[in-house]
């Protein structure tokens, strides 16, 4: 792979799960392990501290060809557009995301749900606009469908990233018990 593989999506939309899958596929992952695993992400977050400073400094991407990095939406808009990327965009039902975030932050934000829903809509739109304007290829992966039908989703992923691995090898990463806060309705 001659590009930087970027995993994006809103926080709590399955970006860490996708990082595990990518790790399993033997793609080198840019991660410093500073954010430790916790009950919200028992397998770890696969994050890089430098991503938080991407607005001021995106140079950590300069030597990232062939590697994967997690950059939550809308931060990809600060990526250097002259580099080559391939992006996996994790999507999840907004109500599930909001509930999952509230649970993780142990905060009741029900009275601000529409506010955050709107902010996240803007973040998604901005990120998609950046990808389209810069002709960056991306693949939408729906978290719910990934859990429900891992084989189909993983096959698309393998094709999109030209991964040298088998669907079955990656499917073991997708553990249905991680699919918390399911939107029963």
């Amino acid at each position, binding site marked *: 792979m001659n590009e930087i593989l970027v995993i994006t999506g809103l926080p709590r939309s399955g970006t860490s799960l996708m990082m595990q899958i990518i790790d399993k596929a033997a793609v080198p992952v840019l991660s410093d392990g500073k954010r430790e695993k916790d009950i919200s992400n028992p397998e770890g977050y696969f994050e890089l501290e430098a991503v938080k400073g991407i607005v001021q400094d995106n140079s950590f991407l300069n030597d990232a060809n062939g590697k994967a990095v997690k950059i939550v939406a809308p931060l990809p808009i600060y990526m250097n557009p002259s580099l080559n990327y391939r992006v996996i965009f994790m999507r999840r039902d907004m109500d599930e995301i909001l509930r999952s975030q509230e649970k993780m932050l142990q905060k009741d934000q029900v*009275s*601000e*749900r*529409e*506010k955050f829903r*709107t*902010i996240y809509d*803007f973040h998604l739109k901005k990120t998609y606009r950046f990808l389209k304007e810069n002709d960056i290829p991306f693949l939408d992966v729906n978290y719910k469908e990934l859990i429900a039908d891992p084989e189909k989703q993983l096959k698309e992923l393998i094709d999109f990233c030209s991964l040298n691995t088998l669907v079955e090898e990656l499917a073991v990463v997708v553990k249905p018990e991680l699919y918390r806060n399911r939107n029963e309705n």
Partner: protein
Amino acid sequence: MAKKKNKVLLVGWDAADWKIIDKMMEAGLMPAMKRVVENGVRGRLATLDPPLSPMLWTSMATGVRPYKHGVLGFVEHDGQGSVRPVSSHSRKVKAIWNMLSMEGYKSNIVGWWPSNPVESINGCMVSNLFQQEKKGKEVMDKDNWEMPAGTIYPDRIIDKMMEVRVHPHDITGNLVMPFVPQAIALDKKQDKRLTIIAKFLAHASTIHGACTELMETEEWDFTAVYHDAIDHFSHAFMKYNPPKMEGLDEEAYDLFKDVVKGAYVFHDMMLERLLGMIDDDSTLVIVSDHGFHSDHLRPRFVPQVPSGPAVEHSPYGIFVAMGPGIKKGARIHGARVLDVTPTVLSLFDLPVGRNMDGKVLNDIYEVPKEIKYIESWEKIDKEGGSIVIPDNSDESSNESALQQLIDLGYIDDMKVEGDPDENRKEYLKNTLRENNFYLAKSYANGGQYDEALELLLEIENRKYPDFRYLIEIINCAIKTKRFALAEEYLTYIRSEGLIKENFIDVLEAKVQIGLNNAPQATKLLERAKMSFPDAPDVLLELGKVLTIMRDLEGAKDCFKKSIEIDPDNAYAHHGFGLAAMRNEEYELALEYLLNAVEKLYHYPQAHFHLGECLVFMKQYEAAIHSFEVVANIAPNLPKTYRWLQDIHEILGNEKEANYFKLIVSKYKLGEKVILTGVPGEKLQRTIQILQEIGLNIGGDTADFFGEHIDVSQPNWLSNFSEHVVFVPLQLIGSISGKFDLVFLYVQDDVLKAADFILQLEIKKESVYDAELIHALQKQVSVIETWFAQQPNLDVVYLTNPEDVHTPFVKKYLDLNVD
């Protein structure tokens, strides 16, 4: 390049207002201004929102809105963890003086806000800190009066500029007497108001001195001078201006009632001097960035929030131009702050940037000019001047300028208790937050509601609720049809008691209108009106909702009352005109719609309805003009092009009709046949027959009252894949103009329909009474008027359900039956 003979003098008087100037000219107190007006063109200059002077004067000098030029308030981050008065470092685009420098013209720029540090232009610059007599918080002596860094360009003129300065201590009691005749009886040391007058006079004299000195001693093509004195005098003394405001102290009124008048006389005297310095080949332009309420519209109190004093500003400044090739004694309409730079460029026959938000005021010319355009002045690689000192601050001059802004009430002072570092950080954070609020307001003012909303949601903080932010969020949410978001904020505001209940009712009513719930909106607004019978917002909103409800006489009463309170309110004139038009009183409607566009030219809805009104009066040529104005200022309204197509078809202009047909097709979301009608047995039978012959009808054909369609969703009709869609009668007006439509309208007897409704027991609460019949009659009358007032609409009237079998009806249906 050869210099043009014609020079241009641009004079800026912050907050100058026609209401005062006209009275003064009539009384013979502004003879210089009167001469200019009689020999030139005059008009009102519409301001921008927010009406804050540094943002407006930068728009004036660049032709773009604040979200493009970057000057976002009175103060800015100094890059070192603190704030400083807004400077030229914030400006992200070229100003008129840069453009003229690039083309080889010489300029004198004096006192423009903000222009410190000055730029190395082709000519001379004297910044807005030039007149400052304070160093830090101390007033410097006249003999030891330093010049702040970055004030003058080039260095060679520093000495002569220092010579012309007038120190406030030079302003003696005698000089203040024309403003306050009884000044001698007041203790100058005790009454700060006299000191303030002396200071404003000294500042204005200093700027005037610098301007005249440069005009006299330097070669120039363009001189621009900015005076803040009328704004400052007005903020401090307009409350004493006649007529006397209720509750004002009698003694204070007698003492200071002539101050504002004196300020205008003083400016007229300065103008007289300038007129004596230009010849007949020169063009003079006088502008103000906004007006100032001087009558019953003066606010009774100024809100204690940042930039609170801006509530005293009125939305129209002044525009006057006099010179060769410019009309004499004429009036122009529709000028905006944004149009000044494009117009100055046209005076020099220079091109206008297509990225500019303003336009050339071509109506000022006896013979309209052919306007030249370039993509953007930013892309031209020529030397236009750069800021003479790097982006660091002279703390002492910043502090004095900051103090000036605090004194004027535009910004809050920093807290002094507690940890100074923490205070500074908090102050900076709040300043940046406030500037982002102004940025959001600028986006909203430019119609970029998504951008505004995104920013507002980021800066809104429930720990420090600010009602201004919350109101703006709700307004943007309504504009972008995010009603759930608006409701969430309304619930929050109500629960915290952050705004008066009646004002919340007005906001809630706007949401209800968006949700197509006009009865609930009316209820809320009627409640608000009980408490504030004269509030323009309440009257306007109530007028709008009554128009929707087709209580057209009630609507007209609301708008009329609003016009009585403020005859300049373009929205009230538009509202009245629309209500009259819906009532088919076209002559009356025309009068008010013309008033609306005269008062506010950049008002696409008013031009649009004016165009419709003219069509109904069969004045097709005039209607074409109105719709072309709409197409120019709001090109994304598809219905405009439908009207233009329709009118040209009527006039037999085949080529034009085809042209607009093509545009319509670009906007078109699709073609639909809408089945609708009086909710009765005939309609039910028609639906049944059509279904029997195998027609797929979209929508809920049992839902005669539109309870299952969410018309608040944009382009809701697109949700139906079928070509034929059943839409209940009361929702017809919500159909987007982006569809090509054919209506199958089933007519029925209203009395029979009322019986049918009661039999269906859908309206269980209804009893046979006049109310239901009246409601149905009204609905039928509304829809038939609506049909008559739409462009490019085919309506097939069905009186008998069996008529669907006739070839004529089948012609329409066959197109859509597989």
